[in-house]
C-alpha cells in the first residue's frame, strides 16, 4: 500500500487552543506536522459548511479546538460550537464521512501538553482510518 500521510485542517480559537498550541511550541514539545492551523477568534466562528468544504477539498480529518466550557473568551461561544459539531457529526454519516474524522477538543491556553497529545492522537487515528474517499457524487 502506498504510504499515507493524513491531511488535516485544524481550526483553533485565538484565546485558548491557538495559545495552547503556542505554549506547546514555547515548551519545545513535538508532534506530527500533518495539521495546518486556521486561527479564528472563537471556535463558534466555524461554520459546519467550512468543515464540509474541507472534507470536500480533500481533508482526511478536521480538528476543532476551543476554550473549555465556562471558560470561553466570548462567554458561551464554545457551547454553540459544541451543539453545531454534535449535529454535524450526526449528518456526516449521510455524506459518507465517518464522524470520527471530525474532532472537537477543549484545549486551554495552559494546555500545551494536551494540544500535543490530542493532535498526535488524532493524526494517528486518521492514519489508521486511511484516506477519506468520498464518492463522486459527494465530492461534486
Amino acid at each position, binding site marked *: 500500500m502506498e504510504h499515507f500521510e493524513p*491531511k488535516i*485542517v485544524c481550526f483553533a480559537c485565538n484565546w485558548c487552543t*491557538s*495559545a495552547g*498550541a*503556542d*505554549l*506547546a*511550541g*514555547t515548551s*519545545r*514539545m*513535538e*508532534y506530527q*506536522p500533518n495539521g*495546518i*492551523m*486556521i*486561527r*479564528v*477568534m*472563537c471556535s*463558534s*466562528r*466555524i*461554520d*459546519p*459548511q*467550512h468543515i464540509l*468544504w*474541507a472534507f470536500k*477539498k*480533500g*481533508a482526511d480529518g478536521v480538528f476543532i479546538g476551543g476554550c473549555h466550557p*465556562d*471558560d470561553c*473568551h*466570548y*462567554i*458561551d*461561544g464554545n457551547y*454553540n460550537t459544541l451543539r*453545531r459539531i454534535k449535529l454535524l457529526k450526526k449528518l456526516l454519516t449521510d455524506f459518507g464521512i465517518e464522524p470520527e474524522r471530525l474532532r472537537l477538543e477543549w484545549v486551554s491556553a495552559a494546555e500545551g501538553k494536551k494540544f*500535543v497529545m490530542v493532535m498526535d492522537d488524532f493524526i494517528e487515528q486518521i492514519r489508521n482510518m486511511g484516506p477519506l474517499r468520498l464518492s463522486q457524487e459527494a465530492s461534486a
Partner: protein
Amino acid sequence: MSTQEKKDNISQEKENVEIPKKRKSKRIGIFVCHCGINIAGTVDVEKVAKTLSEHEGIIHAEDYVYMCSDPGQKKITDAIKEHNLDSVVVACCSPSLHESTFRNASKSAGLNPYQCEIANIREQCSWVHKDKDKATKKAIKIAKSIVEKVKRNESLEPISISVTKRALVIGGGISGIQAALDIANAGHEVILVERNPSIGGHMIQLSETFPTLDCSQCIMTPKMVEVSKHPNIKLMTYSEIQEISGYVGNFKAKILKKPRYVDPDKCTMCDECSKVCPVLVPNEFDENMTGRRAIYIPFPQAIPATYTLDINSCPGLMPIACGKCADVCEPNAIDFDMKPEIIEEEVGVIVAATGYDLYGLEKLGEYGAGKYPNVINGLQFERLLSASGPTKGQILRPSDHKVPKEVVFIQCAGSRDPELHNAYCSKICCMYTAKHAMLYKHHVPDGQAYIFYIDIRSGGKNYEEFVQRAIEQDDVLYLRGKVSKIFEENGTVKVWGVDTLTGKDIEIDADLVVLAVAMRPSKGADEIAKKLKIAQDKDGFLAEAHPKLRPVESITSGMFLAGAAQAPKDIPEAVAQASGAASKALAILSSDRLYHDPIVAKVDEETCSGCKICIPLCPYGARIYDEEKKIVVVNEVLCEGCGCCIAGCPSGAAQQRNFTDDQIYSMIDIIL
C-alpha cells in the same frame, strides 16, 4: 423605436449593468524571519521565501535573521514603499508576540495596519517539528494560507467610542471603598453602591487584623468617613444594581434605592425609635449572636449615620399596625410613605467589589455546626473579641456566657475538601486562626487554645513570624490532623481527632469550638455576574481576564474586579487589587476616546432576511433588529468579534471583517 435603436439601447443597458469587477490583484510582500536559528534551524527559510515568491500576488519576498529588529522592520517599511505593496505577511513567531510590532511598522510606511498579517511558523511549526523537510513544507502552507487571507483583507479603522468620565463601584467593603477613593482622588466622579444600610463590609466587623494586631475599626472608619465626605463620591447605600446595559465607556446602570423610611438628613441618631420598637430580630452585624430592632443602626459608626427601618421585620407601615417609632421621633425623620426609587446613572467603567460571605455553618453538620451553640464560625469569634461586640470584648461562650477555658479552632472547615465542600483553599484562615488563638490567650491567659490544621499557609510579609509568635509566645497547641467527630456531652463540646504527626488519637473536652469556615462569593454574586455579564469561575467567584497577566480585569472590557469577589484574599491583597482595578479604570477615564478592534460582524443588507437567528447567538446584545429595514444590524461598538452569529447566519448575509467565509474557504483550499 427602430430595431437599430432598440439594439443600441440594449447594448447600452448591457454596458450599464455592473459586471462584477475582478478583484484588483493586491501587491503583497512576504517577509520570512529566521529568528536566529529558532526558525531557520528546522525550516528552510530561504526555500519558504523562494516558494512564496512564485505564489500568485506576491510582489516581493525576502528572509532576514530577525524581522522584529529595527533593521528587520526597516526592510518591511522600505519594501512597502519601494514596491508599492498593498499587504504584508510576516512569517515569524506567534501573532500574540509581534503582530502589533509589524502592524505598527506597516502603518508607519503608510499601510493600513489591518493589511499586515502574521504567519506563525515558529511556535506552531519550527519549534514543534524536527524533520526539516516536513517542517519547511508545513511552513510554506502556513505562509500561503495567510497570504490567501491577506489578499482578501479589508483596510479597517479602529472603532472609536466616547467615554463617560464617571465610575460605578459595586460594594462598599474595603475593596470597594479603596477603589472608589482612588478614582475619586484622581478627579473623577464615583457612584459607590452598597446593598446594606452602611458601608464597611466585613472588615468593620473584625476585631484586630493580622499580623500587626491593628484595631480593624480604627483603621477602617477613617476611610469610611473619607468616602462620605468626598466631593467626588456619590454614596448610595441600601441600594442594589438592577440592570446594567451599554459597553465600555458608556454603561447605563439602573440602581434600585430601597426605602429606609428614615430621612438621613433629619435623623439625629437619638435612638428613641429603637427603644420603643417591639420587634426583635437577629443582628446580622453581630453574626446573629445578639438581636436588633426592626428600626436600627447596624453599628455606631455606620455611614451614613442614620437609622434604617427594616421593612421585612417591621409589623407594618400603617400607623394602625404599630407606628410607635414615628410617635417618638422628635425630628419627624420617619416617613412611612417612602417608595423604592430607580436611579439611572451613566458611567464609563465599573468596578465589581462584591466581596464574600462565609460558607453556611449549617452545611458543616459533621462539626455539629448549626446544632450546638458553642460551635461558632470565625466571624462570630471576631465579634466576641471586638470591643464593640455583644460581650464588649470579653470572650464568653454563647450557651451560658461562661469564659471558655479550652478552645478548639478547626481550620479548613469547608475548604480543601473537594468531596464534600469546596476544593479551594480560603487562604486567610491559617492567619486569622493564629490571630484568634493569640487574642484568646491575651484575653484568657490561663486558657488553652488548640488548632487542628492540615497545613499552615503563612505566605505574606511577617505572616510566618506571626504564626511562630502564636506557637512560641502564646503557647497555642497546633495539632496536625482533621477532626473526626464533634458532639455535646455534659455541657462541653467533645472533639475527637487525630494528631497525624504522633499518630495519637486526641480527645478534647472543649468549651468552645471555632470553625475557620470557607469563604464563598457573596450572596447574590451569581445575579450580579449575570447583570454585569462577567464570567464566574467554577466556584462562583468573578473570573479575571487572565489569571497571571490580567488579574484585575474581567473579560468584559470596562469592568474590573476588586477584592474577595474574585477569590479569597486578605485585606492587604484586597486593597492592592482595588487600587489596581482603580488604576485600570482610570486609564479608561483619562482618555477622551476609546478604540475597539474593528474585526466585527457586518451584514449584507440585501441578503439579510431578518430571521433573527443571530440575535440570541450574540452574547453581547450587539445584533439588533431594525424595524424599519426589517433586517438585523450590528452595533459595532458592542460587537466583540467572536463571529458566532456569522456561523449561525443561514443566508450568509453576516460576515466577520477580515474573517470572512471567502477567506476561510480560500485558506482551506490552499492548505489542502
